[in-house]
Each structure stands twice: as C-alpha cells, then as structure tokens.
C-alpha cells in the first residue's frame, strides 16, 4: 500500500522515460539525498564520518566505476586499485607542481589521466575474455604500482617515497590536508558520489549503456547488429577508470591524507571493490552503493558490536570469529539472493506494493 503505482499515468514520452518513473522512488531518493546533506553531518560524530562514512562514500564511487565496466559491459577487472592509484598520483603531481590549480579541477583531470591509462590496459579485452581478462588486468595492477614505487618522479623524489595531500581550499573552506574538518571532507565526497551516481545512471540508460549491455550479453551478436566492440569496450574501460581515478584522488586527498603505493594494494582495494559490486548486484548503480555499504560497514559493525553488548574477547580471537562470520554471511547471502542487494531491494519494493494485504 506504500508503494502503489496505480493511478500514476504517464502522458508523455519524457515522463515515461524518467530516471525514476514512480513517484515514491523520486521522493525516496530525494529524501535520502537531503538527509545525507542536512542530517548526517550533524548527527554523526567525527569517528563516524572519518572512519566509516567517508571511506564508504569514496569506495562507493569506485564501485560504481567498476560496476560500469564489469556489471554493464561485462569486462571483469582486478585492476581497480591501480587505476585509483593513477588518479591519486596524478592529483598529487598536479597539486604540488601547480599550486594554484583548483583542487576539484585537479580531481577531474586525475580522472582523465586514469581514463587514458585504462584505455591502454583495456586493449587486451578485445581478445581476452572472462576470468582470463580478470587475471590479465592484474598485469596493470602490479605494473602500475611497481612503477609508482620505483620512479621517483611520481612522488617528487622525496626520500620517504610517499605522497601527502597538501592543504587546498574550495570556496574558502579547506577540504584537503590535515586542517580540513571531517564535515568538509564529507560534503566533498558526498557531492562527488551523488553527481557520479546520477551521471552513471543516465549513462547506462542511454545509447552507450545499451551498447555496453549488448556487448556483455554476447559480444559476437552485438557486433553483428552494428555495435563496434573496439570503441564500446574501450569506452567502458575509459569511463570506468575515470570514476576509479577520481575515487583514488579522493581516497588520498580527502580521506587518508598521506600514503604509499601499498594503500592501493590488490588485496586491500581491488578485490574488496569487486566484492562490493558482486554483493551489491552486478549491473546496478544502486547496488554498487549498497554493496559498498555492506563491505565497509559490516566488518566495523562486527568489531564494535560484541564489546557494546558486554562480550569482551581477546583481540585476535574476536578478529578471527569476525572473519568466519563475515565469510559465512557472504555465502549465506549468495545462496539466498545470488543477484545481490539490488535484487533484494527490488523484491522489497514488490512486497511493499501489496503489504499489508498480500493475496
């Protein structure tokens, strides 16, 4: 009864093709965004913002990027960490060498740099498919991180081999560097995620997105109906890497503040982002965000929950139990709903349509 679409008539094509054709969806999304801007920064303390919400927002942006490539265009990639690193290092080089450059512009240019690198490492996708491609993208992962670690130019030859985000302002408010408040960082990352999600949602509804899906479902058939695999696949790599590059720049500049290549490690970044989109739902923008929430929030929840209800275990035992529970949850989840949280969300909406009077 809360989710009835009866009575909502579409009288024009424009209305029929709206992003959210159903009024409840529009209200819901609007409420979430307003809540995120107006309520969350005042309700959450610094721990929540800095340790939980900001990384979640940034990783969600990267997950959207990967979902465009893997979920929509069907090209499995494990090079996410490397593309993020390209963005971060490009941004570091730009901000330190051109101090007057607006930092948001720097973020966007970093995305473009990552897109260029993504295109290069996307070339093998024309020939290699499936898990073979996934493992081949590891070449990008290892090579790029090795390069950033090896060549001093990328980190301005400083002996420590790390990059540190210099303080930069936007509209007179410091948004990077140690002096930036958690709220300022939060607004920046939230804005990037909201804009990124809206653009991505529109992208996948249009010609580009449909050609990606055609390639994903069967590339030979897509080729026959006139979709050029070269352009389409490389476009997917470019746009996906753009998202990852921007997320990578945010990761260092807005969140960590300082890091070395290890921060973009395969097991710490590339794999978890892939988990996010699988758990969230392949081929769903909303799913990417929900998956990011699950993968970042669940371990933190599992760590903090037992002490809160008075169970104090040894640190290591608790961590191991956490891993077992987390792993078990992933398996259980996939058994219940292999298509991820996004599908679950859809089912929930269908139930809500009839609730509380199902047939």
């Amino acid at each position: 009864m809360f989710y009835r679409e009866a009575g909502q008539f579409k009288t024009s094509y424009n209305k029929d093709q709206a992003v959210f054709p159903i009024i409840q969806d529009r209200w819901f999304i609007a409420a979430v965004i307003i809540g995120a801007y107006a309520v969350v920064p005042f309700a959450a303390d610094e721990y929540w913002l800095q340790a939980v919400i900001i990384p979640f927002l940034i990783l969600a942006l990267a997950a959207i990027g990967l979902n465009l490539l893997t979920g929509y265009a069907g090209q499995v990639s494990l090079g996410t960490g490397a593309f993020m690193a390209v963005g971060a290092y490009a941004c570091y080089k730009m901000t330190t060498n051109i101090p007057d450059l607006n930092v948001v512009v720097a973020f966007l240019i970093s995305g473009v740099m990552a897109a260029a690198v993504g295109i290069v490492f996307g070339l093998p996708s024309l020939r290699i498919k499936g898990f073979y491609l996934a493992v081949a993208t590891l070449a990008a992962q290892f090579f790029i991180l090795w390069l950033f670690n090896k060549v001093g130019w990328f980190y301005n030859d400083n002996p420590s081999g790390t990059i540190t985000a210099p303080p930069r302002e936007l509209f007179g408010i410091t948004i990077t560097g140690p002096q930036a408040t958690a709220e300022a960082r939060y607004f920046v990352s939230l804005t990037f995620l909201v804009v990124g999600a809206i653009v991505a949602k529109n992208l996948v509804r249009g010609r580009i997105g449909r050609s990606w899906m055609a390639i994903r479902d069967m590339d030979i058939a897509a080729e026959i109906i006139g979709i050029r695999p070269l352009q389409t696949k490389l476009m997917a790599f470019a746009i996906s890497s753009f998202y990852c590059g921007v997320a990578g720049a945010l990761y260092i500049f807005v969140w960590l503040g300082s890091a070395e290549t290890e921060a973009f490690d395969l097991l710490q970044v590339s794999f978890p982002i892939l988990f996010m989109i699988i758990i969230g739902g392949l081929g769903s923008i909303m799913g990417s965000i929900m998956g990011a929430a699950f993968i970042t929030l669940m371990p933190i929840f599992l760590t903090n929950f037992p002490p809160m209800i008075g169970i104090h275990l040894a640190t290591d035992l608790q961590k191991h139990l956490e891993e077992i529970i987390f792993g078990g949850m992933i398996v259980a989840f996939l058994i219940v709903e292999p298509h991820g949280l996004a599908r679950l969300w859809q089912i929930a909406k269908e139930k809500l349509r009839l609730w509380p009077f199902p047939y």
Partner: protein
Amino acid sequence: MEFLNAVFVAPFLDIADSPVFFAEVVIGGLMSGVMYSLVALGFVLIFKASGVFNYAQGAMVLFAALTLVGAMEKGAPLWLALLIALGVMVALAFAVERFMLRKLINQEGIILFMATIGLNFVLEGAGQIAFGSDVKRLDVGLPDNSFEVGGILFNTFDLSAAFIGAAMVTTLALFFQFTPMGRALRAVADDHQAALSVGIPLKTIWVVVWSVAGAVALVAGIMWGAKAGVQFSLVLIALKALPVLILGGFTSVPGAIVGGLIIGVGEKVAEVYWGPTFGGAIEGWFAYMLALAFLLFRPQGLFGEKIIERV
C-alpha cells in the same frame, strides 16, 4: 642509447659470456616454476570440475599446512599427521559441497567465485583460531643440502620438490584423461545441468574433486611451508599461481605445469638480466605481462580448451 644497449645488447652478451650462470638461472627458474605449478594445480582441478575459480585455494594451502603442523606439534608422527591433514581436507570438501556448492548449482561463474571468497574468510579465521597466527617451523625430513655440478648449484630440496610436482601432475593428467571419473569431471565442467541429466552424480564428483584439490593444497603447503615456515603469508602464494593459470589455461592439468615452467624461467631470466636496468623487482608484473603476451595469441591459454562462440 645506453638504455637501448642495456635492454637489447648487454643482456645477450652477458648470457653468451657466462653460459654456465645462464644455465643456473634457467634451472633455478624451472625449480621455482614447479613450485608455482603445485599451487596452480589446485585451481585447475576445481575450475575444471565445477567451473569455480576458487579464490580460497591459498587459504586451503594454509589450512592444510596448519593442520599438518598442528598435528605434529601435538606429537603425532609424520605419517599420522599427513593422514589427519588429508582427512581434514576431505571433510572440508564434504562441507563445501553440502553447504555451498549444492545450493549454488548452475549459478554464474562470478557468483561461485564470490562464494569461494566467503569460504576464504572462513578458512582464514578458523585456521588461525585453531592453530594460532604464529610462524611454525615445518620439517618433513626432506634433505636440504646444496652441491655443485659443473659450477651450477643444486639444492636437494628443490630437486625433491620438482620430482614430487612432476609425479603429481603426471598422475592427475592420466587420471583426468583416461578414467571414467575423469571424463565425468570434464562433463560437469562444461555444464552442470547437462551433466546431471545424463546421469553423472554431481555431488560425488564435487566431493572427489575438492578432496583432490585439498590434497594438492596439502602438498603445496608442505613444500612452501618448509621453505618459509608455516604462517599466514602462505595465503599469498595464490597470487604467484595466477599468471601460471592464465598462461597454461584454466582447464588444463599439463598446462599448469608447462605454464609454471615458462613463468618460472621467464621471470627469473628477466629479473636477473633485465631487472637491474629497470631498477629491480620486476618479476611480479613481468610474469603477468608474459602471460598476457601469450594470451594475445591464444586467448584460452596454451592448453585451454578452445572457446567456440556461436550466436
């Protein structure tokens, strides 16, 4: 100019200059290659039989090695410890089939992959709860001496590892090629439902193949564990096996060994002769680049089954 010289001329002059050392590098590469193959083999077995890219293979190696060392620390002799570890791996195979695979029949590859990631977390946690996170010394009594033949240094441990690896691959390759069980395994890999409908007992096959993969993981765990102690890092050797896998093909047992040897020799030669020019530690990505180069010519890996696509 100097750079071009260092890339295209100097290494070859160097090789021609001291062929004995080159031979040593190649032999060293072959030895490492066998060690990679041992890990890659576990992946191949499971992929071949259930179409699952088993992310948890590294964790299985750790788990098997931990069980073995754990049993030995409790005072069990080696043969008993081996039996116990093997038993635990078989039990694990049953559990995986019962609680995971059976419920995910006919799902897409990437979903099954994700499920093995869940399994990976469980194994890592359970292994460390049961046996602790400390480094443990593993001594299975393989001789570890070095001797020189014609200026080339050999190590008895490496030689035994190579021998064990070769024996295992031969057995498994024969098993897959010539037994009814092997044929059934291959049928399952192609299509779960089709295999079921022609009367192949899916569940049995899966238990068997995960048990065999567990045994392979145990051997890999012993070999790598004897080198560096049994500790959590064993999980990471899975990364060393991935280029081997794509080079040899996900579905080929001989591919795993040939791929291992090519990667082993390729990365050692590259690191020793070209590494210094590029600043060293290039073998990590070089193995992947090498595999990638092979893939451009054979997208299914050297020995993989040819991918035929129809509209």
